[in-house]
């Protein structure tokens, strides 16, 4: 069965520091890959997505992610975090089967120290 693993439940970084959130997936083919962000009590906002082509994708709010087929990974990065980046981050795999159901990781909660 398809699965998504986000190894880090909670990460704390200082404002201005770089960030990398890890995501590994298990799927028989190259899936569609997504990163979403969720502020407390809010819905999910799409940060970026990978369908095909260039393996380094740029998203909103200065985020980027790199697809590495050999490692089955899609890690999210940001060179310098801002206090407003504190939120929950979810990696998701899209299963291209008709309605394309999403399988989500458990999420990584990001805390920013001033």
């Amino acid at each position, binding site marked *: 069965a398809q699965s998504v693993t986000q190894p880090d439940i909670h990460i704390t970084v200082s404002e201005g520091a770089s960030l990398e959130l890890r995501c590994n997936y298990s799927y028989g083919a190259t899936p569609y890959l997504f990163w979403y962000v969720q502020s407390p*009590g*809010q*819905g999910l906002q*799409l940060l970026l997505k990978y369908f095909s082509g260039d393996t380094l994708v740029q998203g909103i709010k200065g985020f980027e992610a790199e697809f590495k087929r050999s490692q089955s990974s899609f890690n999210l990065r940001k060179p310098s975090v801002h206090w407003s980046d504190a939120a929950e981050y*979810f990696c998701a795999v899209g299963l*291209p089967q*008709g*309605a394309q*159901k999403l399988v989500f990781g458990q*999420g990584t909660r990001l805390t920013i120290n001033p």
Partner: protein
Amino acid sequence: SQTIHQWPATLVQPVGSPLSLECTVEGTSNPNLYWYRQAAGRGLQLLFYSVGIGQISSEVPQNLSASRPQDRQFILSSKKLLLSDSGFYLCAWSLGGETQYFGPGTRLLVL
């Protein structure tokens, strides 16, 4: 542009009571629609999805049901709520099976 609405935003219901959560999408036609549940401190679990009016697929056997009476309306229901139904319910839409866009969510507390 497309927008997605969910109501109510928050709901507190007693065990055994019925439930109806509504999701509507504006600005698009024939979207795929999805219901997810997010339990406290956990990821999202797909409950139902629909590719058209009256077409519902269930992902997880449970106490809930879904209906799609109109093209851009998706309803999540229960006849008798359980304590375990508490959580954050998110509706999402997509076109052609690509990127899913989420609504603001409904927080349900069953007491």
